[in-house]
């Protein structure tokens, strides 16, 4: 009987940032074309676990619901991905949901991704154009370059690449794939290029680019299909050249 079909969720929960994690099981009625978030909404409407006990609703983050904001990342059946774009019909049951363990946990499935914004600051992932007077139009960008740079600009700081990376964890200060690719994006921009050494030097700091061990999980799991490993190799090349320029001296070390 289709009406009686249920979906089982086993959710790793945590009541506070320093609480102890525990698992809770929920059975919710199945509907056609459900995604993971609609399952979580069902639990929110009726927070009763599989034992029939009343419990607190499960907390999670979401925003756009179309895989462009990056807020709803979580570990679904062992793999980090966007819960809005993950369909129940494509998953094995029971469905296991857990927060991304690379990040500090705020509550249940909500994590604090602040380290990703700190990483963007470390690589100066912006283009400084503010001044006291109008600087006029900047240099033009070749169309071919714009096309691949646009792919890099799709990054939504969702954190899935950091979660899948074996070298991003609390024992390592590796900056992670996302910020490396953003440094490449802003260095590709004709105006951003004028400050490219500042970004490269951010990558050369401790905890910068060298933590990469080339496991290449990042490029496999990126929900936006960003060529992260190409960016990492490109930034490896650029930081090496910058290091040589710094040491031996160069008029083009800007």
């Amino acid at each position, binding site marked *: 009987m289709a009406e009686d079909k249920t979906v089982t969720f086993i959710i790793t929960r945590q009541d506070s940032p320093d609480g102890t994690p525990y698992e809770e099981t929920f059975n919710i009625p199945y509907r056609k074309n459900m995604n993971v978030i609609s399952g979580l909404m069902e639990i929110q409407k009726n927070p009763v676990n599989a034992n029939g006990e009343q419990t607190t609703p499960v907390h999670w983050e979401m925003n756009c619901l179309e895989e462009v904001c990056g807020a709803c990342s979580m570990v679904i059946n062992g793999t980090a991905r966007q819960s809005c774009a993950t369909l129940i019909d494509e998953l094995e049951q029971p469905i296991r949901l857990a927060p991304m363990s690379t990040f500090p946990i705020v509550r249940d499935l909500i994590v604090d991704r602040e380290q990703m914004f700190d990483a963007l600051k470390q690589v100066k992932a912006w283009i400084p154009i503010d001044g006291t007077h109008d600087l006029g139009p900047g240099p033009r960008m070749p169309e071919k370059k714009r096309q691949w740079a646009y792919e890099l600009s799709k990054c939504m700081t969702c954190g899935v690449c950091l979660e899948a990376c074996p070298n991003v964890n609390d024992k390592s200060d590796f900056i992670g794939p996302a910020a490396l690719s953003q440094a490449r994006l802003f260095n590709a921009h004709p105006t951003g290029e004028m400050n490219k050494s500042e970004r490269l030097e951010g990558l050369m700091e401790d905890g910068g680019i060298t933590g990469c061990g080339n496991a290449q999980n990042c490029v*496999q799991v990126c929900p936006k299909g960003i060529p992260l490993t190409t960016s990492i190799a490109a930034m490896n090349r650029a930081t090496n050249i910058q290091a040589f320029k710094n040491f031996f001296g160069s008029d083009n070390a800007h």
Partner: protein
Amino acid sequence: MAERQEFFNRRLHSLLGVVPIGIFLIQHLVVNHFAVYGEGSFNKAAGFMEDLPFRLVLETVVIYLPILFHAILGVYIAIWIPKNNVGHYSFLRNWLFYIQRFTGIITLIFIAWHVWQTRVQVALGNVDVNYQLMQDILSSTGMFWFYMIGVISTTFHFANGLWGFSVTWGITQSPKSQKILTYVTLVVFLAISYIGVRTLIQFAYGV
């Protein structure tokens, strides 16, 4: 510059793995392969290497110090840092990442033992490096398999390390070039493994 120490160390670690350690590895396996052409042939080749001028300086600068640096930083990279996840993310490169660290540790154990048997013992005056010594060591089945695992682990670590070297130094940037290099390093692995294993069989079984 202090906060750039890690960048410098990791780049040096990557470089030393190929130059000079990788070059030494190939030279070592090739020279040992003289064993296949007979005892006299091996003793002549090993004798030539042993009688090189400034041998201790060459060994220290080209072999001991680079391996020591590569090993110490390598243990930190292999054991302390990674949170291996090949179970959930079982992609080829993730497996190779894991095996690279695993073979690094095996190789370190093997090299430590190998240096003890063929260098420290010689320095202590207990044995001489020649065909006979290797024959004695490898005639034990346990030692033969220990050497087999050690040599194959070393050749894998070197061949796959070449791939990592090319990415770390920004030589292979495009996915296509990285993929082709995966096949190239596989051929390198098979070729130098053959050279090493063939020599071990010669010492152990005389064929």
